[in-house]
């Protein structure tokens, strides 16, 4: 099986170790991974801020970049949700505004092949034990897009529960937004920071060594607040935990 990694612009630039972890994990599970260099951003920052037209070429780019792959796997719940929810809307609006059906056709091809990492592991590969070892206490923050837009349900927890040595700690108010919200963090800085502080306090109260999630953008926010508070809790992408083994522990 050959799958394309959609690493996302945030991971590409700031969290390459998450991309490397996905490659290591998938290859360990016998999957051949490709990385089309034409890929860039899903267009979420533009679309969610109101610049739908600026996101439109990125829909077509996504389609071109991943043409020929049966599966596109991404370690980002929000980027997967962007493809699934917003691409069809962008395509339909482009057609309605007289710019042809190209974007709509691109969306129709992109949606069924795009999977968030935990969906791909559980639904397509049918595994929950990925042979990982991470001997630490961990708490899990279900990100809003993972939780509500994608409906990931208990997939991440099922994967975490089979990681050797890992102790999962319950997070109080887990389903509440951390306050990142893309440009929300910049446009409403006080409210965003207040939400982040409450999330950070809840994370610290679990006593876990690390907080994990399926989205590095939320983790950048939570981790940034934790670091500013001088906390010792680390923010780690779920993929990095799943990629860690006894031989190759997480850095």
């Amino acid at each position: 099986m050959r799958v394309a990694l959609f690493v996302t612009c945030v991971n590409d630039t700031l969290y390459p170790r998450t991309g490397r972890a996905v490659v290591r994990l998938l290859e360990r599970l016998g999957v051949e991974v490709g990385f089309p260099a034409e890929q860039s951003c899903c267009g979420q920052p533009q679309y969610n801020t109101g610049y739908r037209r600026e996101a439109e070429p990125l829909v077509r780019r996504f389609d071109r970049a991943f043409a020929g792959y049966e599966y596109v796997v991404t370690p980002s719940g929000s980027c997967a949700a962007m493809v699934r929810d917003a691409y069809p809307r962008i395509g339909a609006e482009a057609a309605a505004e007289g710019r042809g059906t190209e974007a709509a056709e691109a969306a129709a091809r992109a949606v069924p092949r795009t999977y968030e990492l935990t969906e791909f592991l559980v639904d397509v590969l049918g595994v929950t034990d990925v042979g990982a070892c991470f001997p630490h206490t961990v708490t899990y923050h279900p990100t809003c897009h993972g939780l509500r837009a994608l409906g990931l349900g208990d997939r991440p927890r099922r994967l975490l529960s089979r990681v050797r040595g890992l102790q999962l700690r319950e997070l109080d108010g887990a389903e509440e937004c951390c306050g990142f919200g893309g440009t929300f963090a910049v446009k409403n800085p006080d409210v965003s920071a207040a939400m982040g502080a409450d999330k950070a306090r809840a994370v610290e109260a679990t006593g876990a060594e690390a907080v994990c999630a399926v989205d590095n953008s939320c983790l950048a926010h939570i981790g940034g607040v934790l670091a500013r508070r001088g906390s010792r809790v680390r923010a780690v992408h779920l993929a990095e935990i799943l990629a860690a083994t006894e031989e190759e522990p997480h850095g």
Partner: protein
Amino acid sequence: MSGTQPGTPAFPEAARDAVRDGTLRGNLRHATRTIRGKRARAVAELDDWAELRAAGKAIKDRTLRHLDHYLVRLERSVTAAGGTVHWAADAAEANRIVTGLVKATGEREVVKVKSMATQEIGLNEALEAEGVRAYETDLAELIVQLGRDRPSHTLVPAIHRNRGEIRDVFAREMAAWGRPAPDGLTDRPADLAEAARLHLREKFLRAGVGISGANFMVAETGTLVVVESEGNGRMCLTLPETLISVVGIEKVVPTWRDLEVFLQLLPRSSTAERMNPYTTMWTGTADGDGPRAFHLVLLDNGRTDTLADEVGRQALRCIRCSACLNVCPVYERAGGHAYGSVYPGPIGAILSPQLRGTGSAVDASLPYASSLCGACTDVCPVAIDFPEVLIHLRERVVQGGEATRNGVRVRLRPAKGHAAERAAMRAARWALDHPAALRAGQRLVSRTRRLHPARLPGPGRAWTDARELPEVPPEPFRDWWRRTRGDAR
């Protein structure tokens, strides 16, 4: 809609004070969390909740599609039952109609049952300008009125006040409005309720005119419905000689069978009760029972314009249950006042910029007063897709486009103050559509990573004020891939 007060601050500024007010945040946090938990339990009791919700959504959508038809039917039914129907295109017209009706009775005082429509149009102020004093009789509204405050929650307008604050307001202000608070009033809920009861009872027995809103209007019989908890509303609806109801046109439902669905959805979503204590229904006038004269003022005030928008119109499904406020993490921190409108929380963020347009600073900021977390959509009993409408309205703010204002199709220009952002988004689009440029940019960031300041200038400052920046890695992912795997796909 009567428009915002000039100078009403944009949401981020208005929220700043609330975020820093520890008492306010504590009050809001406690209240919303309590009701959130209760609602979840009340909803979980029904195994057909999903079907009820789908039915509520479908009934509202169908009614909105044929709103003209059902409103005409409603008018016929109300008139046949002895009532009089008035049509008000905007706030000014509605206020003119109501003040005219009150003055025609010769009364100088009116009692009111909680009505968001009359707050939306600023009726109390309009009446005062004509020498008529309006008394709010809903307990929370009374607290807000006595405290010279503004409501901050749809269902619990005084949610931001705690018991001690309410006691102080009663002791200080009641005398100026009627019967004073008893001496030595404590902050026990029973004592506070008794003080309000004695104060209000006088007004109910004296008032010649009652003014109400309505939760629903049944087109087939011309029946209006108010759902409440205290019974004060029923006093207003039954005791005065003249009853004037001011209701938004979207509140019509075709039949009693439709009403049945909403009488299940509303109480559980709103107060987390299986059934609310008082449901009062009135149909026109009847000899020897209730008001002798009944007037229904049907309020448009931006609703027809909202209806013309295919994405935005779903906001008109709202049955004002306030479940979206109680789960909203932004509302919980910012409080209701920051929304600059009688409609706070997620519903305010999508309704006000449609009813009033996106012209003012606060209305242009409201579509951004959300992290798009979607918790509101999860609990909405009529399944409003809040993120969809928020993003739709954001586009209207930054890019302009077609909209309907006062029944006329207009082309809106982008709101002011987004030029730099628009340029940045265009530049980003260009870079993201040219991977070579993107790669060069990433490399520049990586190579200069030791030079990056801990605090950013410009818009980035908002980030570094409260958070550390992620450390920039020495090598972007795509360079690692190329170095270790080559360019092969």
